[in-house]
């Protein structure tokens, strides 16, 4: 699984990082991006799904399996 934050949609609600801090980084303005290349280790897949489901802007996509 791989995730990607759409920078045009992210508005910095910071829900993703609260739900799955292992998978996201914030810039100094609070906008989010996936860590490294967005690869999600097996044990974090559930957290990745939760981040997607809690993003109010639908800014996080699961790109591939």
């Amino acid at each position, binding site marked *: 699984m791989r995730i990607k934050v759409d920078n045009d949609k992210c508005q*910095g609600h910071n829900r993703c990082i609260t739900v799955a801090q292992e998978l996201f980084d914030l810039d100094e303005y609070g906008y989010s991006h996936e860590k490294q290349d967005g690869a999600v280790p097996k044990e974090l897949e559930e957290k990745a799904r939760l981040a997607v489901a809690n993003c109010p802007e639908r800014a996080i996509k699961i790109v591939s399996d």
Partner: protein
Amino acid sequence: MTTEPIKDWATDYDIFDPEYIKDPYPVWDELRGKCPIAHTERWGSSWMPTKHADVYAIAQDVEHFSSANPLVVPVVPPEGFEQTGDDQRFLGVGAPPISSDGYEHTWTRRLLLPPFSLKSMEKWIPVTRAHCRSLIDGFIENGRADAAADYAQQIPPYVIAKMLGIPSEMSGTFTQWVQEFLEFGLQNFAMASEARNKILTFLWQQITEKKKNPGDDLISYLVQADVDGEPVPDQHVLGTCFLLLVAGIDTTWSSIGSALWHLAQHPEDRARLVAEPELMDTGVEELLRAYAPVTMARVLTEDYEYNGCKMAAGDKVLMSFPAANRDPERFKDPDKVIIDRAENPHIAFGAGIHRCAGSNLARMEMRVALQEWLARIPDFRLEDPENVTWAGGQVRGPRSMPVVFG
């Protein structure tokens, strides 16, 4: 101001109706079923979407829906109103970024985001915690308190005063001014403009002072900041400080109050939060969703038909984030408060480019306020549910809420 009885909520809604302020949820349910974008002529022409999809879509469409005046009703001078010297002095001071569109919004918002980041909030957690504890010390022996007035109301003005670098003894005065501007002032122009002048006069003194003697605080940060190599114009510093007071006090006070109102009546949720403190994050989000306090407005930039509604240039749209959060098309069992709701993409803090810049602060204050309350007062109930008073309009929450402990 019209006080005519409401004939039909779909064509004649009144956000100041006392029953609606107390319990707006049935009205939104009814509207979603038959006329999801309601209309009224009570304060000029305005529209109120009640579905998440519409509120969300309108929040993203900044071309047609401007933030030039985000108050839910036009605050217009009564006939014969004479401007005072202060009115003229502060003419044109806005409230950037909430009242800005376009590029002005972009830079005024970017200026504010770093000091309100998740990380910047860490420093304020112990300050907030100590303050909550001392508030509780003040009433715990009595076995009762007004959870809205003695607790919820006392937290946000104290913390924002500390952040701005203003004496925290001023926080009671701030609360009063903000209430006069945003709550009572929505239906009383003279009171609103007087309150605005008092806030701006006070802040202007503080800004002048910090320019001479900058410290480690938010006002000093704003007066020393530069944007594209230029210092921030004084008018903007003033407008932004004004916004921080006005946007940060009533709102957070209301959501802490509503959270305690819920917990006072739900022993099972209190017990869970006490036994499983790790549920506080989902708990706070759920209480924010279910009791979202803030409704903002947009102004139509041109005639535009949205979803079958023929909106005219100058019409207002009330962004009912609270109604969107109760939409069954977006949230399963929306009227149930589920303390560990795992999927909760609520928009209590808005959506799109105006997403609440203070959301990390508000969440922190709510979390700490509830943690400290539950640690000392795990068992409490409303003294008399009928005696709780609510404010509504722009910001909805309990204003007086006597509770008894144990």
